[in-house]
C-alpha cells in the first residue's frame, strides 16, 4: 500500500480536442515524479484533473486507494492534494503571512461555524511563521502579496502548499520565468522537501531541472504517455528526443 | 396583427440596439460599464434639437450632434476615465460609480440649461405612410430604420475594412497583445468614445423624434436597459448587441400584445437576460467566437 496516487485510463476531452487520451500513472510514497512534454502535451490539464478543477471525461483516479475522480477542488485539497500554479496566483490584497495562515486553515473552513473561530491564534501564527522561515519569506510577512517580486511569489506558492501539510504536493513549473539565482533557490527548496520524505509531482519545462530533482519521469505528448523511466532512461529514449527535437533548446 | 406586431418589435428593437451600441463599443475596449452613455444620449438629443431649431435641417442636426457628442466623449475618456482605469488596483466598480456621477450631473445640468419641460422637435416628415396589405409603417419609423441601417453599415465598415477598425478589434480581443504588436491603444480608446457617444447621441435624437419629446431625464430608462442589452449580447460584441436589442424589442412587444400587463416593460428585458444567462452565462454571443 505504498501507492499514493494511481491514474487509470484517464481521458479529458474538450469538445473534439483530446487533451488527455488514455493515461495510466502510478505514484509511490516519498517519490518525486516529473511530468514533462512539449507545450500542449496535456501537463497542466493533468494537474487540473487530479486537483478536481476539471472533471475527467473518462477514467479513474485513486488517492491512497480511494476513488476520487470528479471530486471538487476543495475536497481534493482537504484530502491532502496541494498544488502550486504555473502563473503565480497570490492572494494579492492580503499579507504574505495571511496567505500562509489561509492555507493552514484547510480543515477550518466549515461554513457558517467558521465565523466564530479566530483565525490568527498564536498557535496558527507560529506555525505560519515557521513555514515562512523555511521558505525564506520571513522578512516580507507584512507585505501584501501583490507587492513582492515573482521569485518570492514562487516561494509563497510552495509555502502555501506546505501549509496544507499534504499527502501529495503538485508543483506546476515552479521555476518558470525566474533568474538562475532564484531557480537554484527553488531547487534547493524542492530538494529539502524530498529529504523530508514528501511525495511530489513536478511539471517542469526546463529538463535539466527535472533530471536533477526527479526519481522517475513520465513523458507526455498529445495527451498520451510516450515514455516512462528514470531520468537516465528518459535521456536516452529516442521517442522523447524526437518529440522534443527543435522544440526545446534546453534538452541537450 | 402578428405581422404588424413583429414589425413593431423589430423597429423598437433596432432602436434599442442603436442605443446600446455605444455602451458596447466602450465596453469592448475599456471594460467599463458606462452608464454615462445614457447622458450622451440625452445630450445628443438636446444638441440635435437645438441645431434643428436653428437650422431647420434634420440631417445636419443629426450628424452635427453626433460629432459634437462624440468629441465630448473623447474629452470624458481622456480626462476622467483614462486616468481612473490606468491607476493600479482600481476595482471595476469605480468607473461605474464615476459614470453614475457623470450621469446625475449631466441630467441636472440639462434641466438647468434647458428647463424641465418637454421639448418637441415638431418635425413633419414629408414621406407617406408605407402600407403593405394590413401592415402600416409610419414615416418616422421609415426614417429611423434607414438611418439605423446606414449607421450600422458605417460602423461595420469602420470596424472591418479600415486600419483603425483593425486596431480597434485587436485591442478589443487582447489589449496587451495588441499593444505588443504596435497598436496605439489610446487611439482605439478614443475611437470607442467618439463612436460610442456618437451612437448614443444618434439614438437620443431618434427616440426624441419618434416620441416627439426631449427632456432632461430621458436617459433614465436607457441607462439601465442598455446594460441588459450589452450583457445579453455577450459584453463588448457589436453583433451580439444587435441581436440582443432585437430579441428584447420583440419580447417586449409580443408580451404587451398577447399577454398584456403582467409586468412592466423594463422587467421583460431583465427577465430575458436572466433566463438567457442562466442557460448561457456568457451571453448570446460570447467573446471567444466573435
Amino acid at each position: 500500500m505504498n501507492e499514493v496516487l494511481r491514474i487509470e485510463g484517464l481521458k479529458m476531452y474538450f469538445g473534439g480536442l483530446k487533451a488527455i487520451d488514455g493515461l495510466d500513472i502510478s505514484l509511490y510514497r516519498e517519490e518525486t515524479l516529473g511530468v514533462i512534454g512539449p507545450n500542449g502535451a496535456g501537463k497542466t490539464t493533468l494537474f487540473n484533473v487530479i486537483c478536481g478543477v476539471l472533471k475527467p471525461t473518462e477514467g479513474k483516479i485513486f488517492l491512497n486507494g480511494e476513488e476520487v475522480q470528479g471530486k471538487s477542488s476543495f475536497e481534493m485539497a482537504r484530502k491532502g492534494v496541494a498544488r502550486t500554479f504555473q502563473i503565480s496566483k497570490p492572494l494579492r490584497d492580503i499579507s504574505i503571512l495571511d496567505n500562509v495562515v489561509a492555507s493552514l486553515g484547510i480543515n477550518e473552513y466549515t461554513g457558517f461555524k467558521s465565523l466564530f473561530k479566530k483565525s490568527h491564534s498564536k498557535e496558527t501564527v507560529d506555525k505560519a511563521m515557521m513555514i515562512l522561515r523555511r521558505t525564506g519569506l520571513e522578512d516580507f510577512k507584512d507585505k501584501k502579496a501583490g507587492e513582492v517580486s515573482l521569485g518570492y511569489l514562487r516561494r509563497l506558492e510552495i509555502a502555501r502548499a506546505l501549509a496544507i501539510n499534504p499527502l501529495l504536493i503538485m508543483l506546476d513549473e515552479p521555476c518558470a520565468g525566474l533568474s538562475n539565482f532564484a531557480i537554484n533557490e527553488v531547487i534547493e527548496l524542492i530538494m529539502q522537501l524530498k529529504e523530508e520524505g514528501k511525495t511530489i509531482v513536478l511539471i517542469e519545462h526546463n529538463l535539466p531541472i527535472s533530471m536533477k530533482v526527479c526519481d522517475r519521469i513520465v513523458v507526455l505528448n498529445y495527451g498520451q504517455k510516450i515514455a516512462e523511466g528514470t531520468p537516465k532512461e528518459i535521456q536516452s529514449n529516442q521517442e522523447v528526443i524526437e518529440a522534443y527535437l527543435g522544440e526545446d533548446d534546453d534538452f541537450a | 396583427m402578428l405581422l404588424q406586431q413583429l414589425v413593431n418589435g423589430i423597429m423598437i428593437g433596432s432602436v434599442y440596439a442603436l442605443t446600446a451600441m455605444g455602451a458596447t463599443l466602450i465596453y469592448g475596449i475599456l471594460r467599463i460599464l458606462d452608464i454615462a452613455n445614457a447622458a450622451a444620449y440625452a445630450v445628443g438629443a438636446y444638441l440635435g434639437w437645438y441645431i434643428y431649431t436653428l437650422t431647420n435641417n434634420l440631417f445636419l442636426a443629426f450628424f452635427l450632434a453626433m460629432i459634437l457628442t462624440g468629441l465630448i466623449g473623447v474629452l470624458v475618456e481622456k480626462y476622467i476615465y483614462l486616468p481612473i482605469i490606468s491607476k493600479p488596483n482600481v476595482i471595476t466598480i469605480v468607473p461605474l460609480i464615476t459614470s453614475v456621477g457623470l450621469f446625475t450631473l449631466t441630467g441636472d445640468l440639462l434641466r438647468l440649461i434647458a428647463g424641465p419641460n418637454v421639448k418637441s422637435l415638431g418635425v413633419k416628415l414629408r414621406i407617406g405612410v408605407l402600407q403593405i396589405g394590413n401592415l402600416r409603417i409610419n414615416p418616422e419609423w421609415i426614417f429611423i430604420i434607414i438611418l439605423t441601417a446606414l449607421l450600422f453599415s458605417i460602423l461595420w465598415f469602420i470596424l472591418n475594412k479600415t486600419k483603425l477598425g483593425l486596431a480597434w478589434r485587436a485591442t478589443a480581443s487582447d489589449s496587451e497583445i495588441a499593444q505588443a504588436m504596435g497598436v496605439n491603444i489610446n487611439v482605439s480608446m478614443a475611437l470607442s468614445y467618439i463612436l460610442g457617444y456618437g451612437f448614443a447621441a444618434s439614438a437620443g435624437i431618434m427616440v426624441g423624434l419618434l416620441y416627439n419629446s426631449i427632456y432632461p431625464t430621458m436617459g433614465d430608462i436607457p441607462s439601465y436597459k442598455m446594460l441588459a442589452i450589452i450583457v445579453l449580447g455577450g459584453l463588448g460584441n457589436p453583433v451580439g448587441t444587435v441581436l440582443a436589442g432585437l430579441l428584447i424589442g420583440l419580447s417586449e412587444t409580443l408580451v404587451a400584445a398577447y399577454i398584456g400587463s403582467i409586468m412592466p416593460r423594463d422587467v421583460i428585458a431583465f427577465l430575458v437576460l436572466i433566463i438567457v444567462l442562466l442557460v448561457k452565462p456568457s451571453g448570446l454571443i460570447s467573446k471567444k467566437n466573435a
Partner: protein
Amino acid sequence: MYLIVVSVNIGIFILLALSLNIITGYAGQAALGHAAFFGIGAYTSAIMTSNYGFSFWISLPVAFMVSGIVGIGLGLISIRMKDDFLAITTIGVNFVIVALFQYSSFFGASLGMTVKKPMFFGMRMNTSGYLILITIIIIITCYFIHKMNKSWFGLALSSIRNDEMVASSLGIDVNKYKILAFSLGTAIAGIAGAVYAHHMTFIYSSDFAFTVSIGILSMVVIGGIGTIRGPILGAILLGAAPELFRFFADYRMIVYGGLLVLMMRFQPQGIFGNDSFITRNFIQAYKNIFKKKVGDIIE
C-alpha cells in the same frame, strides 16, 4: 427632531452599506441589486405587522431570515455567473423583485403599503426610539463584522475575493462561502428594511429601485471598500449630502454628481479606504504621536 429624522435615515443607509460591504467588499462579489433585499425586509415586516398583527419585534428577525433566504438564490446565481455578467444580473434581480412589489396586490401593488408604528412597552415608538434602535443594530453589526474579519470565515472570503481557484485549492468550499456571504449581507439589509418600513410608515415599490442600490454601492466605494469605517462614513457623507446641499437649492444634484466624479477620479480607493490619502496621513500622525503599532488601530 429634524436632525434625528435625518440621522435615522442615515443610520438605515449605514446598515445597508455595511451589509453590502460583506458581499462586495469582503467576498468581492458584484452586487448591484442590494435595494431589492432592503425591500424584501421592508415588505416582510410591513405585511407581518399591518396585515397579520404580529409585533414589530417579531417581524425584525423574520425580515432578517426571509431576506437571507432569498439572498441564497442570489448566491446560487453568483456560482454560475462572474464579474460584469453577475453585476448586471443582480440589477435584473432588483428590477424583477421591485416589479413583484409593484404588480402583486399582496404587496399593496400600485397603492403601496401603509405601516403602523410599533409599540414599545406600551408606548408608540417615536423617532428617537428608532435612532436608538438603529444605533444598536449598527453596533451589533459592526461587532459582528469585526469578529468575522478575525475569523476563518473572513479569511475564506478574502481568499475568494482574490482568486476563487486558489481559494478552492486551500480547501475552501467557494460556492458555500459565496452563498453564505450573499445570504448574510442580504439578511442584514432585510433588518434595515424592517426598520425603514416602520420609520417611514408607508412603503412603495420604487423606494427599493435600482437607483437606491447604486446609491448604497456609492456609499461603500466612496467611503472605502472592505473596511468597517468606510461604509459608515460613506453613508454619513452621501446620506447627509442631499440635506447638506439644500442651500445650493437648484444646484444640489449637480454638486452631488460632481462630487462622485471628483472623488472617484482622485481617490478611487475611497476617502477612508485602506490606501487613501486621509488614512495614510492619519496613521502617520497617529504613529508619530503615540508610537503605536499600526495594526492596533486600523483593522
